């Protein structure tokens, strides 16, 4: 589904990714963990070219993002959820969700709204369709953001620390939605600090530090028998 081949990314002289190779299969839930500044968010953001790699190939669903013509097509197939939600504050929840399907998929307004309401029901916010983002709590905003991404019927969902900006009591409502998605077989790549989530629904865990994937394996492998010293150190600090 997503292939990254020797991806490097530099910001000025600072090399953030130093050769990332990975392959996400259909139906996998890949969890990326690592210390802050390790490059884990950059790995995720290269998958839909929000960051353009300095070198290397990113291939999503057979489309190489090196070819600029593929970028918007890939993005329409790849949903993304951000740490800070990034809902559109000047639009209602319903308009947030229906904008892209109408503009890109050329759905009719009625069709887009029907799907949007189904998705809102799924994330438990059907009664908030006419609300504006600022009227919602952080957890509700993030669930709307997930619904917005799902409205494009993506083949993959990318989550960039989706619960990091939330008050603790709202984390579980967002994780529950993500778990449901995983159980339905959605292919997901999740950058997170939620180790419980990683253990419960992750099919594979990657540990990234200093721009490299230092360790990968099943959650049991990585969390209980970490081989790399830095993985051990990181896990000892957060578990």
């Amino acid at each position, binding site marked *: 589904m997503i292939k990254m081949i020797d991806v490097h990314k530099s910001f000025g002289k600072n090399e953030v990714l130093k050769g990332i190779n990975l392959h996400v299969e259909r139906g996998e839930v890949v969890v990326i963990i690592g210390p802050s500044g390790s490059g884990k968010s950059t790995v995720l953001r290269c998958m839909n070219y929000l960051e353009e790699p300095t070198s290397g190939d990113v291939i999503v669903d057979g489309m190489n993002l090196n070819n600029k013509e593929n970028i918007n*097509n890939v993005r329409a197939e790849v949903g993304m959820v951000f740490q800070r939600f990034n809902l*559109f504050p000047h639009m209602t929840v319903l308009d947030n969700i229906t904008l892209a399907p109408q503009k890109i998929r050329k759905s009719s307004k009625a069709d887009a709204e029907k799907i949007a309401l189904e998705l809102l029901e799924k994330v438990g916010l059907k009664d908030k369709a006419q609300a504006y983002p600022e009227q919602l709590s952080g957890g509700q905003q993030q669930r709307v953001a997930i619904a917005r991404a799902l409205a494009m019927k993506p083949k993959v969902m990318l989550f960039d620390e989706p619960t990091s900006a939330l008050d603790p009591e709202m984390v579980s409502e967002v994780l529950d939605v993500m778990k449901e998605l995983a159980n339905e077989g959605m292919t997901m790549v999740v950058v997170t600090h939620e180790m419980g989530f990683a253990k419960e629904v992750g099919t594979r865990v990657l540990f990234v530090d200093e721009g490299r994937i230092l360790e990968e394996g099943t959650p049991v492998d990585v969390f209980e028998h970490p081989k790399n010293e830095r993985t051990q150190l990181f896990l000892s600090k957060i578990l």
Partner: protein
Amino acid sequence: MSFDWSLIWDNFPILLQGAVITIQITVMAVGCGFFIGMIAALANLSRFKIIRLLVKCYVELFRGTPLLVQIFMIYFALPMVIGQSINPYVAAVTACSINSGAYVSEIFRAGIQSIDKGQMEAGRSLGLTWAQTMRYIVMPQAFKAIIPPLGNEFIAMMKDTSLVSVIGFEELTRRGQLIIARTYGSFEIWTAVAIIYLVMTLSISQLVAFLERRYNIK
């Protein structure tokens, strides 16, 4: 010294006609300036350095020289280059529009920059193009943010249009000058002119305040 009210009453219709022309030229200048400024601000986001450089030159040139000089350049100097005289109305509107556009482009730039980068990222991540994201997501928010400074520009431009009187264009200020040349009623007529300007600018302030409330700007 006595204040001769009859001077004002007798000439009031002439001054009001001037005020209408002032409004016309202001609306046209700000309207054209708005589009020039918006296009310049968007061009300034171009990835091509040469386009950004051209925008910068335009802004610095028209912000950095007096409007009065720009009016002279367009009305007196430009005809020598193109070998054809320019109608004062066209010259006045052109000079004011281009001048206003330079300021408005800076207002737009600040407005666009004030919108969180995550908005563009969210739009692009959904598959929207840069232009679609600008149009549906960034610009509507930027518009709201720039209503107050745009109102200031509108008021400033209304007052600056008095400068086009120097090319004989008969807007409010020029009408006042002409009446005074005939009646020597400097005190009365300039007072009347000032009050008419004030009424017009206060109306714009009210309009801006209304728009701010309507769009709920905090």
